[in-house]
């Protein structure tokens, strides 16, 4: 079986490939893939979808102990679904146990590739992990909203996405670093073009206008200090048909500035 590490090559928009690299989350993902491979005695495959410069990241992965590297060649900005499809195509036919990804990249940062990938290869998913315990089973701790945590037992096949602080990538050995310089990297033809906005920035809600606080003095103070959330009602239970519910959710997201 094979453990897959997915790496995204990033180049700062005002710099060249010398200043490129992978995100801390991807480094963690690679380290977890190497640990999983060692614990399960499986081969580790590093996969990147990107231009030739991404070979640098793949060679670093090989230097650290990955057994094989595949680059799906694409110089275009691709949607998450396209990236996931490209990775799924690259690992098609392999007996994959776990796929390790960073939880989100530093450029677009939607964190959606792992979920799309899990759907495309028909694997389980455990996303946004802050801890993985490797034993007889893979136990993962997942971050939830409001400071809550979810502990999962994850069976193969599964896609795991990890935060950057979960593991420090090991230092490549000298022999590994030297061998990786000329190691073969399989290059596959990738998809071209997609309908993505050209602006590269992390996703974040738009700023929205808050009405002046209303009510008694204390309520107004609470409203101001909480950014308007303290005095706001928290949802109204409704029963709707699926299509209406979807429209309602989209309208709410629009209202909250997420569109």
């Amino acid at each position, binding site marked *: 079986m094979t453990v897959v590490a997915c790496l995204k090559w990033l180049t700062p928009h005002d710099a060249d490939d010398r200043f490129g690299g992978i995100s801390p989350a991807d480094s963690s993902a690679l380290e977890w893939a190497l640990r999983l491979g060692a614990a399960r005695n499986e081969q580790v495959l590093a996969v990147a979808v990107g231009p030739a410069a991404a070979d640098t990241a793949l060679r670093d992965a090989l230097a650290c102990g990955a057994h094989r590297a595949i680059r799906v060649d694409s110089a275009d900005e691709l949607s998450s679904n396209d990236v996931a499809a490209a990775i799924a195509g690259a690992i098609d036919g392999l007996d994959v146990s776990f796929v390790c990804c960073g939880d989100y990249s530093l450029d677009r940062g939607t964190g959606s590739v792992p979920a799309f990938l899990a759907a495309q290869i028909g694997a389980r998913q455990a996303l946004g992990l802050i801890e993985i315990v490797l034993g007889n089973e893979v136990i993962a701790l997942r971050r939830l909203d409001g400071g809550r945590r979810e502990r999962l037992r994850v069976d193969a096949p599964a896609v795991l996405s990890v935060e950057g602080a979960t593991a420090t990538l090991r230092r490549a050995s*000298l022999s590994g*670093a030297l061998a990786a310089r000329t190691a073969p990297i399989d290059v596959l033809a990738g998809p071209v073009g997609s309908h993505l906005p050209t602006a590269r920035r992390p996703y974040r809600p738009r700023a929205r206008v808050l009405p002046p606080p209303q009510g008694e003095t204390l309520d107004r103070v609470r409203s101001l200090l909480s950014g308007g959330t303290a005095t706001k009602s928290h949802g109204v239970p409704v029963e709707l048909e699926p299509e209406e519910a979807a429209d309602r959710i989209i309208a709410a997201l629009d209202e909250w500035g997420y569109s």
Partner: protein
Amino acid sequence: MDFDAIVVGAGPAGSCAALELARAGKSVLLIERGPFPGSKNMYGGVVYPRILDELVPQWWEEAPIQRWVTRRSTMIMTPTQALTIDFRSQNWAAPPYNGATAYRPDFDHWLAGKATDAGAQLLCSTVVTGVLRDAAGAVIGVRTDRPDGDLTAKVVIACDGVNSFIAKEVGLYGKVDAANYTLGVKETLALPKEVIDERFGVRGREGVDFEVVGCTEGVNGGGFLYTNLDTVSLGVVLKLPRLAAQKKRPEEIIASFKKHPAIAPLIEGADLKEYSAHVIPEAGYKMLPKLVGPGLLVAGDAAALCLAAGIWLEGMNFAMASGMYAGRAAAQAVTRGNTGPDGLKPYLEMLNSSFVLKDHRKLQHIPHLVLSDRVQNQYPAFVANIVERMFRVDNPAPKPGLRRIVREERKRAGIRWRDLLSDGWTGMKGFS
């Protein structure tokens, strides 16, 4: 042995050494601590790449140069005065050129590429932490900071920069004296290209080199300003013991330099892009270490081959030349199968017969003179006051004669005739 030669440091010296070795058909590994060659280099100077004629014919057609220096200005400064000797030559604006400004991450990256194209292997992000030695004490390889990080080679060439840990570990340096070093601090200031062209009176890829004495607030040293395409490099070089004794911070001295009326208009409105600092070996010939050890050669800043002789402020050309000769000598030694001190001795002969050591020997007294208290703290005011009085119109008083002005200003500056003549003689002897 893993390699014929290991070169430590992919700066100009290291890359030229690796290039020579690779072209001679030797297996050579070039080890760089940064993620790519040039990434760790702090530099704000002028490159004089004439030595590259030997290594990369027509190098100017491909080297990543910012501007070709066509205007050289030497400025003597006091807090309220500035005397500039300004020279311009359009002969330096066309091949084969003279000096150039360059960003080191670009230039070093390009030069290391020449070495790898010739067959050298480049290993980045790897720090050499020490040398491996045999029972007789000869260097037979290096230890790196990577797991299983030992590598052996017939020859190691240390191009690991100023404060060379390798040369010190092998005992090629004597007791290190801080007075032999200066601290260079530099700001990279961004301005639109057309603004730089207008303020400095240049066009296209023409550039300017300003060297300044008397701008360092009593700390012995000097200032500089060089034009890149859309930035200027501005900084000061400060003698370490004097900087420590005066308890001044280098950034305060740079700030004062930037505010000087002769400098401020040149950089008005510029955005600070980078601040960097670097130690420079500035004592010249007198501080050179032993350049050859058993199985080891030292080149570039690691060998203190930096010339700070007033009007000549050069380092990269000495680094490239010494690296080239080190690579050449190492390749010959490997071919002959003798990499002991005798086998590597031709390196010294090459340096001695070239400008590398000839210039250092000839100008050996100049660095001390340039950084002396009189040149730094007394002569700038002495000279500037003489010029001010010559140009000042004191009507209705009649114009004083030059001899009288010099006599009075010498007294005012507290300079003894004996010292003036002695320094003049040293300068004449050194420069002639």
